[in-house]
């Protein structure tokens, strides 16, 4: 075991060593060898010597990674000017100044004095240009890898409202946000995390609206992360989340730029990560369980009705299987006579107790859901047909399950799809099982006990310092305007009190007011 740790320490040391600075030496060949050495055994790396500045024929070397740069851009805007263009040597103080000012006709050019930094730029989709007898090099951003176009979101679809969703490219994502909030107060800070992956993470917020303490907290939590690589946003979310041991996630992710922007306007912080089509919203509170992006695109009455529906559906999803088992196993006196007779009639001669029957059905549904997500789309449809029709119908015909139980599970399943937040859906999937077990073992008192435990758990949760249950607890009536019911937009004059303490006013009635 100790050997293993020693090895790990050794590896870490190696990686850390790579972060040491290596300034350019005066020897051109040595510099080239250093980069070649660093990028050795990388078949996608391409390099070649060139003669730059027409007439002078100074030796230079360019490095790039095939597939990460745009070949047309490289040949038209970098190679062609470097080789064909010229300038008077007397007009410039040094060659590299001449190259920078006269030859490189592109915008994003950095002068690199550190070899390792240059290597980093190359592997991030840049072109490295080294010139003989110069103590600096150039890195030109020429990213041109294939990427997914901005498409409709898959996980948060709406009928009315913005269709575009975030993509894997962080710059496209920041541009989507920037397009909506055209204000210099929208700040996007960059942090690179992952000792090996060097993943770019951006923290977006609106200066003057966001709470400094909150921003600092988010920054610190991200800074504290020390890991070899962050592959997806979920890893980062889990590492900076408050509630490691709770089923509820205290930060939500979204795929929708409009949702991210509306959170920014409420004084929240949005964390974007390269290669992730989702962004993280911090802080997140329980009210967001029932808020959908579409609520603001439809009339407030319709939106309020939809939210009430979601609240009901949320509770059905959580409690129905458990209550069904509890009532029909322990509390028969609560059931209206005709309903009891109907269920007793349907359950006659079934081999399983009602608890086991319900557990099997809920579990089977979870298997179907999991299969539906994992399988290719074309096959997924077949699975749903097989699951819903064939298994359900066959199970009833074979007298393994009763039709009322199928109705209960189907209703629970349908209700789970009304929750707009993926994190909430996932939490409720597990909680449904817990409530089912409590109902099956302890009846309604068990369900009450579990509900209380859930309530105690969520009431002590905090999301980046904000109580998770706000505005229910602590009570903030002004925030209830955008909770179970959504009042007309013109009445929502203030930002949520918990996230925008310093700059609450969002809307003013009179004209000519200062824009916030």
């Amino acid at each position, binding site marked *: 075991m100790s050997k293993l740790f020693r090895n790990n320490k050794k590896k870490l040391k190696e990686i850390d060593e790579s972060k040491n600075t290596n300034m350019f030496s005066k020897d051109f060949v040595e510099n080239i060898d250093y980069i070649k050495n660093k990028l050795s055994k990388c078949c996608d790396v391409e390099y070649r010597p060139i003669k730059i500045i027409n007439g002078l024929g100074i030796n230079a070397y360019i490095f790039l990674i095939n597939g990460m740069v745009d070949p047309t851009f490289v040949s038209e805007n970098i190679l062609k000017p470097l080789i064909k263009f010229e300038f008077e040597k007397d007009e410039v103080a040094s060659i590299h100044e001449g190259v920078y000012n006269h030859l490189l006709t592109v915008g994003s050019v950095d002068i690199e004095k550190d070899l390792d930094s240059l290597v980093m730029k190359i592997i991030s989709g840049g072109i490295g240009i080294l010139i003989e007898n110069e103590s600096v090099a150039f890195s030109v951003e020429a990213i041109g890898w294939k990427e997914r176009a901005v498409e409709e979101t898959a996980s948060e679809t709406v009928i009315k409202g913005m269709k575009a969703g975030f993509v894997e490219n962080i710059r496209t994502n920041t541009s989507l946000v920037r397009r909506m909030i055209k204000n210099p107060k929208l700040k996007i800070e960059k942090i690179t995390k992952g000792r090996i992956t060097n993943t770019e993470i951006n923290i977006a917020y609106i200066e003057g609206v966001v709470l400094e303490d909150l921003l600092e907290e988010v920054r610190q939590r991200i800074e504290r992360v020390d890991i070899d690589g962050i592959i997806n946003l979920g890893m980062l979310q889990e590492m900076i989340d408050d509630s490691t041991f709770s089923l509820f996630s205290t930060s939500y992710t979204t795929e929708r730029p409009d949702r991210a922007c509306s959170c920014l306007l409420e004084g929240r912080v949005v964390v974007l990560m390269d290669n992730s089509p989702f962004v993280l919203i911090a802080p997140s509170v329980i009210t967001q369980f029932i808020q959908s992006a579409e609520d603001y695109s439809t009339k407030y009455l319709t939106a309020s009705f939809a939210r009430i529906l979601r609240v009901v559906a949320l509770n059905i999803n959580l409690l129905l299987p458990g209550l069904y088992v509890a009532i*029909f*196993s*322990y509390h*028969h*006196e609560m*059931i209206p*006579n005709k309903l*009891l*007779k109907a*269920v*007793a*009639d*349907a*359950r*006659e*001669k*079934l081999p399983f*107790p*009602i*608890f086991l029957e319900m557990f099997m059905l809920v579990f089977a549904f979870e298997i179907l859901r999991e299969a539906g997500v994992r399988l290719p789309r074309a096959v997924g449809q077949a699975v749903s047909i097989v699951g819903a029709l064939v298994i359900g119908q066959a199970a*009833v*015909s074979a*007298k393994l399950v*009763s*039709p009322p139980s199928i109705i209960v599970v189907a209703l629970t399943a349908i209700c789970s799809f009304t929750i707009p937040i993926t994190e909430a859906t996932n939490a409720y999937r597990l909680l449904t099982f817990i409530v089912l077990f409590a109902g*099956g*073992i*302890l*009846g*309604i*008192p*068990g369900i009450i*006990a579990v509900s209380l435990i859930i309530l105690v758990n969520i009431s002590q949760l905090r999301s980046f310092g904000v109580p998770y249950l706000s505005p229910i607890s602590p009570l903030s009536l002004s925030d209830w305007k955008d909770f179970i019911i959504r009042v007309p937009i013109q009445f929502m004059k203030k930002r949520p009190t918990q996230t925008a303490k310093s700059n609450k006013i969002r809307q003013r009635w009179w004209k000519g007011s200062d824009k916030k």
Partner: protein
Amino acid sequence: MFKILKTSLSIAFMLVLLCSCWDRRETEELLLTDALAIDIPINDSDKYEIFFIATKQSSGGEQTQDGEEGGSQMEAQPWVARSQGKSLEEAINKFTVRVPRFIFLDDNKIIILGEKLAQRGVGETLDYLLRKRDLRLRNYIVISNGRVSNSLAASPEFEDGVADEIVAILEKGSQEGDRFHHKDIKKFAEDVVTEGQDAWAPIIEIITPTEVVKYNVDKAVIINKTALFHKDKMVGILDREDTKGFKILKGLANRDTFATEINNENITYAYNQVKVNRSLTTNSDRVGIKYDVKLKGNIAESHLYTDFCDKALKDLEEKFSKVAEEEIKSSVSLMQKLGSDALGIGRFIHAKEPDIWKNYRDNWDMIYQDIDIVVKVDAKIIGTDFISKPIIRKSIK
């Protein structure tokens, strides 16, 4: 930490005691009783005869052997079983050895008492039923005309079983006037134990239907009579007409009819609003009670070939007031004769004049039979239910 653990364990322990898996009972293990019928057995060795009317679950959606879709689904069968014993509990317990199910009385809807039992006294039975944990107080109580076993032999016309049929008639009787003609065990017991108040209960009867309906059923259940009690014993029966008057005075009637003849032509008054106001009258030393009954309704059927002018309507109103008054008075005098204070006159005097009641209390049974009960009916005609004048001319008849 230790405190939290201690608290959690205590709560968990209490939860387990409150309700846990050993209390679990599957729905298919229950015998869902619809009605409980109690009577006196024919042989005198036992004191009680008890009938359980339950629904036997079907096998639920079995397919036919030839695999036809939908299959033949067996209907839930009403199930009646009889037992007898020296006590009610003994009679119930005798079932447990022959029924492989848990007898679930929580969903019982109706209790049928035999006429003989009611005449002997229902006090003991009522006490047992009221104190039984799983029997609900909202069970309806009805008296069987004759033996209970005869009533249970009725064939339900619209519902699955006799019990359901009786409950349906009580709750949703075709005539709205009958809708409130039901009594639950709690109200019944209150009437039995309340001073100056006697109990009453609807009577179920079996009739052999006429030619028209005999294709459907052999014996049908009807409920239009009332059993009157004094203390815990049944003392008499109000027939259909007397029950009508009784219901009006009790404020239970919503809609009913009074028919009479004018110039040998039938005319029927259907009231749909009833207001009853009762007051005490004191005449020298005697206390009397006065019922002011205000009826509002329409002329529901008329074969008179006259226009209803104001005077004619006035005359009709007087006529109907008189008819109603007579019917109600007949009902009242029968109740006095039987000595059943189902109207709660004693209770009313007790509430209004406690001092007088102190004198009446011990001899109320005697006083009640001689007390002056004045009934004044004011029947108002709002309009007619007709959409035209008589179509069949008099000359044709």
